């Protein structure tokens, strides 16, 4: 929380972060506006990758790799499987958007305006000099297993319960189709 330098002379980190943020926001826009279902999932990969780059710039290395592994590696693959199993049309489909699209756009623009206004107003002076090593696996590992053990264990039980629930929910599907 040192004195903030001017916004007109951005550092290299800030330029890289802004470029990655622009990629993330642009691909997120494509996710919610594209007409092809599979392309939405693939643009989601681009968005998550750019966000992982943002985490790397913010010196959160471990979170960045977890983001790549879990989001890009697992969640997007799950979503693609969902697309495949619901027999979604592969090509261009016209009815991906609901008729309340203008209302949704108004709500989203209002949300963005309020959030950006508040955030810019609140954190205009905040500045953080980035130092490497703050988010390495060593730091985070010792933090998790010293201070956050109970949430970690509770979360593992939650994950197990969710996996069992997913299996139970989808097992009748396998039996019913054959």
């Amino acid at each position: 929380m040192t004195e903030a330098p001017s916004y007109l002379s951005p550092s290299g980190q800030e330029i890289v972060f802004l470029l990655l943020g622009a990629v993330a926001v642009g691909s997120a826009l494509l996710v919610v506006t594209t007409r092809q279902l599979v392309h939405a999932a693939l643009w989601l990969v681009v968005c998550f990758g750019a966000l992982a780059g943002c985490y790397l710039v913010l010196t959160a290395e471990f979170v960045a790799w977890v983001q790549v592994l879990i989001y890009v590696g697992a969640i997007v693959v799950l979503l693609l499987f969902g697309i495949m199993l619901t027999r979604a049309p592969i090509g261009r489909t016209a009815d991906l958007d609901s008729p309340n699209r203008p209302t949704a756009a108004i709500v989203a623009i209002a949300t963005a305006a309020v959030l950006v206004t508040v955030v810019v107003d609140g954190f205009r002076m905040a500045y953080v000099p980035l130092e490497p090593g703050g988010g390495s696996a060593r730091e985070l590992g010792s933090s998790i297993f010293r201070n956050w053990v109970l949430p970690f264990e509770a979360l593992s039980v939650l994950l197990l319960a969710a996996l069992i629930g997913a299996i139970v929910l989808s097992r009748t599907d396998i039996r019913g189709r054959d």
Partner: protein
Amino acid sequence: MHVVYPAVVSALLFSIGVYGVLARRNTILVLMSVELMLNAVNLNLVAFDVWLRDRLHGGQVLTLFVIVIAAAEVGLGLAIILALYRNRRTVDLDRLRSLAEPATATLPTSADSSHAGSAPTATTPAALPPDEAASSPGTEPALAPAGPALTSTGSAHTPSRPARTPAEPSIPPRPRPRAGSPDSAEGRRTDAGPGEAP
């Protein structure tokens, strides 16, 4: 780095996620938009953790937890979507209206066509009288444009409306997928029935 940059990026991502949740019809696309919103939160958590130099690394650890919860949420959500697709043969959110309130959803058409017949026998008295009172004093011209739009999606609901059972509007969407594939649906119905009941 200025804290404004990640905060603004995450605010924009969150708004895009809000737009996607509200504007998309496919359930899987809605799940993707929820993921976008979760990622916006993650970016905020990481940025503020780095800014505040948290000694416990609460922000980044919570980011990891959120990622795990998102994985669990996507797994369960896709399982639910697949169960839905199995029963209804659609993942279109606009057609999944069986949990909607039937009194308010199909009131304009039923109030116009069979006003006297359905009003006393409808068994949702808590929901119906204010709507009946609101629609009867001359608001039919305002409600009339919503009628054709509602009958296109809820056409199966309107014939069952004078049948005066409250559970009736939730039943007609189900026989359609079974009628589409009767041979395999009968075997599926017997084992899926107790699972759906709770």
